[in-house]
């Protein structure tokens, strides 16, 4: 477990799935999050995903909890590349009571600390839809900068939207923590 002031990163538990299904039945989460078709994931899908992470020895998937142990969201790596020492990540706060209050930012900072200081990665990347201003602000606060814009890359609500490519280096992360 990785411990912060207001949140911890801990392993996902099977008991979290009920809340996870509830959190991802909210377009405020899924519109901003899913590159694929925006259909709310079912319990069966989460159970299958959970089974996968218990066997995964390539990527990292953590639950975000508050100090009372309530599951509020998650953070994940994908396409972790040991040769180039980079990874993509995703972070979400599913519980609406914990959005826009700095919980996601703290979870992201703990996660970045883990990726840089425990895994030895050099650079962490993510993609964020251009209309997801709340998330972009959070990433900028943590020290991410924009590497470019993938034009018209996600089809949502009848239109194509841009997808921002952002990244943070270990050096930029350390500067932000000084």
């Amino acid at each position, binding site marked *: 477990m990785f411990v912060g002031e207001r949140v911890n990163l801990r392993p996902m538990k099977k008991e979290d799935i009920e809340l996870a299904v509830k959190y991802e039945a909210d377009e405020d989460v899924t519109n901003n999050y899913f590159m694929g078709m925006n259909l709310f994931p079912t319990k069966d899908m989460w159970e299958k995903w959970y089974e996968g992470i218990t066997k995964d020895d390539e990527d990292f998937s953590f639950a975000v909890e508050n100090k009372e142990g309530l599951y509020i969201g998650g953070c994940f790596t994908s396409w972790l*590349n040991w040769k180039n020492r980079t990874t993509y990540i995703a972070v979400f706060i599913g519980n609406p009571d914990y959005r826009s209050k700095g919980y996601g930012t703290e979870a992201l900072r703990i996660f970045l600390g883990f990726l840089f200081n425990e895994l030895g990665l050099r650079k962490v990347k993510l993609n964020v839809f251009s209309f997801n201003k709340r998330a972009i602000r959070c990433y900028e606060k943590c020290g991410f900068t924009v590497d470019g814009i993938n034009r018209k890359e996600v089809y949502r609500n009848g239109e194509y939207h841009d997808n921002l490519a952002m990244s943070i280096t270990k050096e930029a992360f350390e500067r932000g923590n000084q």
Partner: protein
Amino acid sequence: MFSGNLVNIRMQTLSDMEHLAAFRNRPHIMDSFIHEMPRFTYKEQLEKKLKERLDRRHGDTDVHLTVETKDGKVIGAVGLDFIFWKNGFGAMYLYIGDEAYIGGGYREEALDLFLEFAFKEANVRKIKIQVLADDAISVGIYKSKGFQVEVVYHEEVLRHGKYLDVLELALLKEEYEK
């Protein structure tokens, strides 16, 4: 088959795999790998993948074609590694593996044929490609076809002891049609 003056691009056959595996082990091709580990390719691996593709039907999310000279000599490959049908884009690759056919316009013509295939037949609406930023010849070829740089990934990939920049270029169908 998409047929030009110098090359054709066509469906792959099991007998191509020996050539493609040999190409992928040549230094100039291994040096162009971006996210892949610099592992040798065995023809058996490529044969197995092709056999798996032969079992599939519609709804494929990738397509792989052979580049051959007008007299049927296999010189390279071109394809979309990943097609995201919902959002309408694909990630392409193209290589001329036989050094004797580097220069002379073979790659450019294969690219022309492939773009025609991708936009007019496969019906993707955006094609992306990643290239090493210091590979000026490749960058020049894609830009000359209308591709635009969307993302600059700084110090992205380890090659010969240094971290090199990678460019992501993309061409939208409406730009192609202009």
